[in-house]
């Protein structure tokens, strides 16, 4: 290779990467999209919590986190920011296959151990609705009571997340933004 060609390659090797620095970046808030790349269920939950915290910190300006959490407008803005950041979220992104299977088994075992009236009472409370990950929990639908003994068997969650039943699914609900963060469909089918 001639020296001129080598020099040309070196110059291009500097200019091309350099251009990405010089060119103006978008004004949009850029945050990493929370896609699971592995790890355990707890790690994926922690990644969601970190994303949420980063977005909340960006939105909070000069107010305490307690005040912000109590502010309905803040909660809605945070929900929108999370939805944008997770715009391609799909069922199973946080639960993962193994955890989803384990939870489904725990739910089915729990339901099978309940007598008729008790089971009927648990299921009667569960609202019927479409379940869409990254969508809002249906506003008029009450939150179904979670059987306490089942909760004792599931992996503990941070304060902002709860397991809830919606239709025949078990969902991961962000209780402050009302977002359906993830879902395991069909866990209540046949109960």
């Amino acid at each position, binding site marked *: 290779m001639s020296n001129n060609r080598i020099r040309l390659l070196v110059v291009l090797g500097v200019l091309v990467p350099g251009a990405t620095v010089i060119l103006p970046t978008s004004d949009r808030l850029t945050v990493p999209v929370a896609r699971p790349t592995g790890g355990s269920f707890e790690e994926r939950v922690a990644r969601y919590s970190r994303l949420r915290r980063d977005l909340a910190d960006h939105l909070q300006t000069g107010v305490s986190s307690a005040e912000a959490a109590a502010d309905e407008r803040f909660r809605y803005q945070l929900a929108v920011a999370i939805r944008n950041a997770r715009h391609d979220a799909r069922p199973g992104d946080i639960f993962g296959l193994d955890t989803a299977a384990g939870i489904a088994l725990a739910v089915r075992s729990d339901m099978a151990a309940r007598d008729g009236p008790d089971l009927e009472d648990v299921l009667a409370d569960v609202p019927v609705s479409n379940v869409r990950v990254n969508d809002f929990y249906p506003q*008029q639908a009450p939150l179904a009571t979670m059987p306490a003994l089942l909760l004792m068997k599931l992996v503990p969650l941070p304060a902002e997340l709860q397991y809830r039943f919606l239709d025949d699914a078990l969902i991961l609900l962000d*209780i402050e933004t009302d977002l359906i963060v993830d879902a395991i469909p069909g866990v209540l089918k046949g109960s």
Partner: protein
Amino acid sequence: MRPRPGWRLVPALLLSVVALLCVARAAALPAPPLRFGVIGDFGTGTPQQYEVARVMAGRQARSPYDLVLTVGDNIYGGWTSRAVSERFELPYRALLAAGVPFFASLGNHDAVQERDYPPFNMRGSRYYRFVRSDVEFFALDSNYLDPPQVEWLRQALAASVSPWKIAFFHHPLYSSGQRHGSAVDLRTLLEPLFVEFGVQAVFSGHDHVYERVKPQRGVAYFVCGSSGQLRRGNLDQHSALTAAGFDQDEAFMEIEIDGDLMHFEAISRTDAVVDSGAIHR
């Protein structure tokens, strides 16, 4: 004549003795009586809710409440400012205007955001505790009784030095209501704590009736779920649990704790006393 050294000490000593006597006397005085209302499943916005609230206001005016407990389903139909106005602020405006604080717990029809609504005094928490006079109250979120909440309750009960301990939450551990009945999951987790730490009374709702349950392992249980909602005829008349029940009209409760005695009354929408009694600590 020069004053004796230390003469200034005499008045100071006298004052100290008087102060000590005052403190000792205050410590020996009994705590003032505590009077409060209990309502559950009330946030309907119906005429019946308003009528119950009017009866409460009339009784409160004659014999003031220190506070009101709610056992959940505070606002039906979604958390909107209109719903809050029609189903809480307007019906109870007389009580609110008189400065009576409400302490709420969450029902299955309640939005989690209610914990941030200042008049409910939940201070942003799904579950919390507070003390008035010699009573410690423990509000629980029975819709989502997760391990952290159970552990919180254990520690809070263990740390309590109040002579009276009262728990209140939505789902009843014991109930003869045929629509829902006893919450057995919750009973498995909570009853041992109530027994171990000497909780004397538990108030719940969810079944839209009034019921005083026969004492269970030393704990008095009340279902007070008809302060706006009502399921007429829903009490199982053959239940072995029931000490007294009323399912023919809406109702609320009034409690007065004075020393070692807790007096209670269940009062109907028409201002009739449908149950009354006392619990000795």
